[in-house]
């Protein structure tokens, strides 16, 4: 009885603590790295960690309440982790010249195309699927 209550208290504590959940996510990442190294999968360790966590959640071995706060923190501050990577421009002074302008034009145009094509294809198929399921023609 007493032991049971200790587990329940500990679980409640864990579900309220973003710090403990952040530590759990760091541990899952390291497990992912280990799995990738042992199995020699051609994947980043973080992706293996993602699939491990997804499997734990899907098989109900872990409640989503035990990771939600930690995950929300990582996702909310994700842009911070990109900032130091941008500093690589310091090593590529050629990017500040004409070549940089050309590269920027390639990236902007290509990104625009990718977005329009991807969203266009998915939305077109979505309309077909939805109108096929409901037998109601799209309004617009």
């Amino acid at each position: 009885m007493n032991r049971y209550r200790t587990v329940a208290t500990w679980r409640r504590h864990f579900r309220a603590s973003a710090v403990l959940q952040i530590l759990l996510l760091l541990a899952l990442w390291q497990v992912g790295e280990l799995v990738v190294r042992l199995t020699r999968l051609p994947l980043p360790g973080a992706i293996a960690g993602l699939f491990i966590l997804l499997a734990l959640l899907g098989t109900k071995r872990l409640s989503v309440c035990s990771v939600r706060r930690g995950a929300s923190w990582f996702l909310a501050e994700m842009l911070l982790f990109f900032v130091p990577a941008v500093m690589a421009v310091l090593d590529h002074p050629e990017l500040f010249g004409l070549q940089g302008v050309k590269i920027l034009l390639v990236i902007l145009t290509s990104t625009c195309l990718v977005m329009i094509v991807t969203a266009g294809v998915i939305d077109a198929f979505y309309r077909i699927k939805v109108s096929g399921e409901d037998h109601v023609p799209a309004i617009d």
Partner: protein
Amino acid sequence: MYLPSIDVVLPALAWSAVTIALYFAGKMVHRRFPRWWSSPLLLAPLLLVVVALAFRVTYGEYIRGTHWLVALLAPATVSFAVPIFEQWPLIRRYWLLLVVGMLVGSATSMLSSWGLATLFGLDDSVRLSLLPRSLSTPFAMIVSGDIGGTPALTAVFVVITGVFGAIIGEMVLTILPLRSSLARGALLGMGAHGAGTAKAYQIDREVGAIAGLVMVLVGVLNVLAASLLPNILK
């Protein structure tokens, strides 16, 4: 026992503190003036570059003290399991649609990057490094190395794609008459990876989850294609 010397620890602490401080300052400015130029991914690095140039610091010296921040992208990637799990019914219903969108999107990204880079007369190492730029950083660097590009250069292109992609994405979303959050999420996740996904979360949780899923799956898809295709074509 190994003890790092004070000349290593001090700059590492200082650059990490400056980076974090500028990021949160940028976020505050963005909350006060929510414009494209005040995005924390544009304003913070811009100020950092100015500081780094003023102190004559090279990228190598800077990243030695701050690479732990970039490493945190990995547990952030693990965290995507939560929104993917929460949106599972939606994903299970429309997985075929999402896969078609990702295949078409990847093809568009590579063909248009290659075509435009050739048109502008950019050299081979730049052209190859541009190909995987719409993937998120860890995937893009693996693919870049696999196909003969320069991973460090790809990292810069990935970030440029993210910064401007999140901005372009917001503009494209207001122009295109999209009906499904599926298409909105895929647009941001496919076109602007992590930065696009962060933007998608500002729109709503469902769009964010789809963007995160698309970003992760497109990364897995391309890493597998880059490591398997050369073996098959041989």
